[in-house]
């Protein structure tokens, strides 16, 4: 029997090289090309030929009120839905973990929003939010509330997007929490009962501390996904009314594909990219630290 021969270091690179090349082609090159475009005047709506304009697209962004307004909207669409999804998802998971009758069916129902394509979700909610036609205001009227103009009032349009995002992803969060909870040993809860803990105290002092890594993991996962929110906005409000629900990436889309200002849109995307790095960088470190602790 031949003795074990360790694989030389160079061989790792050789085996990995096809993946690295594909990764470079699909990620790094487009980023570099976008960087290049962001310094050009390329615009299909302009009679002037494309030329290098340095950082002028970036300096224009500082004076672009629509771009500046899209930054807090992006922040809102990250913070509000993710926070609500975590809170509601946790509550739903705790209830489902109680093995009450009908919980199995509830799980099937909860999967539904996750498998419906975002376009269908958006179209459905757009109709639901439409006064007279949709049923949201009808149900509000049953409890004596006058429904707002969801899609034509800036604040309510923002709320509408948050509601759709929460509706779409809370079940996912709940199922993730539930999966984690079901791995917790029963002995911990039995000990809490013996110590005289109520159900609420068990949840607070046993479940919540055990769920902390899961909270972090899901929070990061959902934040990353929320950064790219697009189809819901596109379908439900199209960024309106009067650009009130436009996020940074949506404005980049409008600039590039509606206004055909390719150079300017690229500059927005580059700025957005660095914003993402600022958020995702620390989160990734946190995530890795969590995994190290777990392992």
């Amino acid at each position, binding site marked *: 029997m031949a003795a074990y021969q360790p694989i030389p270091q160079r061989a790792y690179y050789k085996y990995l090289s096809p993946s690295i090349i594909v990764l470079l082609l699909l990620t790094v090159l487009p980023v570099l090309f976008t960087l290049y475009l962001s310094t050009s005047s390329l*615009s*299909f*709506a*302009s*009679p*002037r030929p494309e030329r290098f304009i340095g950082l002028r697209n970036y300096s*224009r962004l500082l004076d672009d009120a629509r771009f500046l307004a899209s930054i807090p909207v992006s922040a809102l669409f990250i913070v509000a839905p993710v926070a609500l999804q975590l809170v509601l998802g946790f509550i739903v998971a705790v209830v489902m973990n109680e093995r009450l009758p009908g919980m199995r069916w509830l799980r099937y129902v909860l999967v539904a929003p996750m498998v419906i394509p975002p376009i269908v979700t958006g179209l459905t909610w757009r109709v639901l939010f*439409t*006064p*007279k*036609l949709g049923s949201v205001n009808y149900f509000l009227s049953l409890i004596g509330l006058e429904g707002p*103009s*969801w*899609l*034509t*009032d*800036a604040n309510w349009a923002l709320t509408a997007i948050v509601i759709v995002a929460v509706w779409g992803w809370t079940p996912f969060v709940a199922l993730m929490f539930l999966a984690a909870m079901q791995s917790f040993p029963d002995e911990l809860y039995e000990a809490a009962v013996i110590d005289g803990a109520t159900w609420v105290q068990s949840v607070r002092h046993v479940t919540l501390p055990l769920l902390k890594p899961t909270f972090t993991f899901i929070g990061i996962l959902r934040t990353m996904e929320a950064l790219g929110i697009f189809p819901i906005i596109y379908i439900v*409000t*199209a960024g*309106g*009314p*009067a*650009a009130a629900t436009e996020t940074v990436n949506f404005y980049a889309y*409008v600039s590039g*594909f*509606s*206004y*055909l*200002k*390719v150079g300017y849109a690229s500059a927005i995307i580059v700025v957005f990219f660095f914003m993402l790095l600022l958020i995702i960088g620390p989160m990734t470190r946190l995530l890795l630290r969590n995994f190290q602790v777990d392992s």
Partner: protein
Amino acid sequence: MIYRILALLLCTLLVIPVMSQSDDKPYEGTSLNFLYLATAFTNGLKELEPEFEELTGISVEFELLDEEGSVRKTQLELASGAGNYDVVGIQSGNIPLYAENGWVTPVENFWGTDVSDPAVLDVDDLIGSTMNAMAWDGVQQCLPFFAATIIMYYQIDIFEAAGIESPPTTYDELLEIAPLLHTDEVPLIALRGNPPAAHGNIWHFNSFFHGEGAKFFVDFPNDLTPTVNSPEAIRALTNFVTLKNNYGPEGVAAYQYPDVTRAMQQGTVVMVMEGAPLAGRIMDPEESKVSGNLGFAVVPGGAAGPKPSFAAHGICVTADSAHQEAAYTFLEWALSFDTMKKISLALPQIAVTRDSLWEDPDFIAKYDYDFGAGSFLKAFQDSLAAAPADYYPAFAGWPLMGDILGQAVQEAEIGARTPEDALNHANELITQMLEDEGYLP
């Protein structure tokens, strides 16, 4: 030896398709890709495609999308130069953009060549205004299949009950009778509000804008200094916003054209100013609650008289298509009298672009709705005649400028700005945009 046999076999395989092409089907075996908006006409083309394939041996794959999606995808595809689509549709407002960027092959390039059959196309029969809308810099770029304008649709019985004998001809008249016709249950009017773009609310707002005699520029195309905040423009936007906010259904600022069409079809509003080509849908016998109770008229006007919206839709051969001649063959067949008539009789395709079809007895028999308050076809033709040819200014910056104006209209509608503030702001943004894009020094 085996290599020789294989080489011979390969040569034979290469020759077979060439041999199988007969003289009357020179492009047999070619497959074309078509991209545009799903309309009655394009749906009709898709249904008739087997006939075209049998006739020419050319097959066509159709990709028909919604309005926003089709415009964006077409522009992305053409700008990328990928050549994935051989034939694309176009709205007349985009002709300068597509022509200046060299995205389409002018149809004129095919005229007088072997591929062209003047008898099939019969250019002189295509409505002049729609042909002009598909031309740029004196060169015919694409061919029109759709002549769009708006007319006023109104519920006859509600007008009669309010003691109003004829539809309003001016905005002042309309605002005067509005309180008599409007109720919370059945609001007076629905107009498009979304998307806030050249192909959205601006489609309607421009009618008010031109109707008041407002101009987009000091002197188009010599001086492109924008004037969208003129007193006439402010009056137009004030009327537009007053009508929608005071006499429109709740949430009308978010209405897209299917919402407006549905509101009229279901009788949930008294009137709409909407596309004449949508009459078939509004009066769909299976779904309409107002068919038999509709009056038709040219839209009201302001100081400059009625100026109904105008746009032509057409189809073009893409510059990057690898099948130029086959694509043009398809265009000629699609625009032929026979194809256009078949589609208009089989589907609700009213906005035909052939003079002879407007006079065709079968066409008239199908579409001349008249429920006692005037002929639909007359209202349609009068509107086409009154529609300004420069409804959208013909320059490549228009889609961008129209979108800025669309945002301003929506801002005024939702009360974020007054009409005057919104248009002043829009004028500043448009000036900046025109400077950035090189239209202004």
